[in-house]
């Protein structure tokens, strides 16, 4: 029998680490390395009895190996952000960080007080170091099994000192992949429109507030403005590669669809003229954009190529058809239509065939199709004076409600792994972006400034 041992042990730290470079900005997140072509013939793994309680994780501050204050700050930030990232998916039972004070801080990985962590109930502890190397930092992260005192994960990263959060997000994603076969969302971003700048547009639409497109990290950090049009810029949607945002803009008067290529700093006008075009939605492969337009008399769904060619009309009905969203396979489009009286969600083939109605609400709007393997559509449903978020499982027909009348709740957008939904809610007063898990738990507010609407989650 061939056995290939690939130890990651304390004595061979440097040799065992894979080194990954982080570039200067979050726009080029590091991808995990491709698997080695040489694979082991044996694996050891464990199956536990009982209810499968998640392992208890501790994530103390990383160890600053350089004496300066900047390194200490980076080490502290990585520990806190990594804790939050690992806590987000609820795959691990995270031991609160304020209980770590009783455990002496290690000065090096060799000093880890395993017995003390075990006393705290930890099944695993994530220990890391940060060291300044010239103008860059070297970050190492290792996950230790407290029973065996052995490392089950170890990696090193070199990059800018300004990227503390990106190191944490990258490590979190790699641990989710390795420990849970789960695609984490720690490096993903949100986009939304916001009136926080408080500017008022002048011109034909009296007293209409200016809204600009913003982006942020998935946890609400690093909120940055994308548009500077001082006009109405709304309904942003990430391209599948997360390098462009399509949105509706009134910058030239009539609403049209623009695409901001945010890392190149360029702007494409997908539609032009006075026809009015709204609510863009990227196809999953990024080659086409669906949108709504009354150009033929009343609002219908259209699809156009990314470069503005090959415009096709998908719906043709006296009712108002708006708010398209693509199925994960790109073969179907869900949209809102009032063709039977009140707005309801419909699904049609991307070729315009096989129309079917999927909701029977008093009022349904803003559908968003989940990523695979889920086959669900989240939407806004009028449930009283306000709206709530509901999710329909297309296979079973079952509908579940995620919010229950706290303010109004609208515009759901799935995380790329389908486990959370971003949405707008007025439950805290103004319109803000919140995130909620697909089971209705784990609610988190991600914006606070101004009013914020229409979130979308990058892939």
């Amino acid at each position, binding site marked *: 029998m061939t056995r290939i041992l690939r*130890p*990651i042990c304390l004595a061979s730290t440097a040799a065992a680490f894979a080194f990954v470079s982080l570039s200067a900005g979050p726009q080029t997140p590091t991808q995990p390395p491709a698997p080695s072509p040489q*694979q082991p013939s044996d694996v050891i793994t464990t*199956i536990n*009895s009982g209810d499968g309680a*998640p392992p208890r994780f501790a994530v103390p501050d990383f160890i600053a190996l350089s004496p300066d204050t900047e390194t200490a700050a980076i080490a502290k930030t990585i520990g806190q952000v990594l804790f939050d990232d690992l806590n987000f998916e609820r795959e691990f039972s995270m031991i609160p960080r304020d209980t770590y004070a009783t455990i002496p801080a290690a000065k090096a990985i060799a000093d880890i007080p395993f017995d003390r962590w075990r006393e705290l109930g930890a099944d695993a502890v994530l220990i890391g170091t940060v060291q300044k190397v010239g103008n860059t930092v070297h970050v190492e992260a290792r996950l230790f099994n407290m029973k065996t005192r052995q490392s*089950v994960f170890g990696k090193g990263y070199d990059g800018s000192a300004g990227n503390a959060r990106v190191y944490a997000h990258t490590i979190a994603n790699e641990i989710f992949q390795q*420990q849970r076969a789960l695609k984490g969302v720690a490096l993903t971003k949100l986009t939304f429109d916001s009136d926080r700048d408080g500017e008022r547009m002048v011109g034909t639409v009296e007293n209409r507030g200016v809204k600009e497109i913003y982006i942020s990290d998935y946890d609400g950090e690093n909120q940055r403005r994308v548009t500077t049009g001082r006009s109405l810029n709304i309904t942003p949607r990430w391209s599948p590669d997360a390098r462009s945002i399509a949105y509706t803009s009134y910058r030239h008067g009539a609403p049209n669809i623009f695409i901001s290529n945010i890392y190149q700093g360029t702007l494409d006008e997908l539609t032009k003229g006075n026809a009015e075009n709204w609510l863009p939605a990227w196809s999953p492969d990024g080659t086409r954009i669906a949108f709504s337009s009354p150009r033929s008399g009343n609002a219908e769904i259209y699809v156009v190529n990314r470069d503005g060619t090959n415009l096709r009309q998908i719906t043709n009905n006296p009712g108002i058809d708006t708010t398209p969203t693509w199925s994960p396979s790109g073969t179907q489009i869900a949209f809102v239509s009032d063709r039977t009286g009140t707005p309801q969600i419909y699904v049609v083939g991307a070729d315009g065939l096989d129309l079917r109605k999927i909701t029977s609400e008093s009022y349904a709007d803003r559908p968003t199709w989940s990523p695979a*393997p889920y086959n669900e559509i989240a939407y806004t449903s009028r449930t009283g004076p306000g709206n709530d978020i509901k999710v329909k499982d297309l296979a079973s027909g079952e509908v579940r409600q995620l919010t229950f009348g706290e303010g109004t709740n609208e515009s759901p957008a799935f995380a790329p792994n389908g486990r959370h939904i971003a949405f707008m809610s007025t439950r805290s007063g103004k319109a803000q972006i919140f995130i909620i898990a697909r089971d209705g738990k784990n609610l988190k507010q991600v914006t606070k400034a101004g009013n914020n609407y229409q979130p979308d989650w990058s892939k």
Partner: protein
Amino acid sequence: VAETGARGQGFGLSTGGGAGSGSTLDVANFCCPDYLVQMIDRIRSNWVQHPELAGSNVVKFTIHRDGTISDILLETSSGYQNLDLSSQRALFVTKTLNPLPAQFPNPTLTVHLNFQYQR
């Protein structure tokens, strides 16, 4: 692979090791951890647990490219015949798993599965 049932199985934490320990490897180097998640899901559904006893044993078995299981062998006993039989029976009843993933190039995969019985 979101919510594939991976929660609570903890396969990753059982890995680790180093030269001289004689039996371990790092799952981080294994191409396809989601295959192990699915494997454990299948075996768990055929596993009769014994809440009256606590113990641990290791059963070794081979997965062939088409997913069939062979060479089921008790590698480390728990000291309780009930638990040892229960672990082996879970494999015999499972019989077949999903075919080995295309990214895994070897003709067979040998698994040392540590069954942990908790009260």
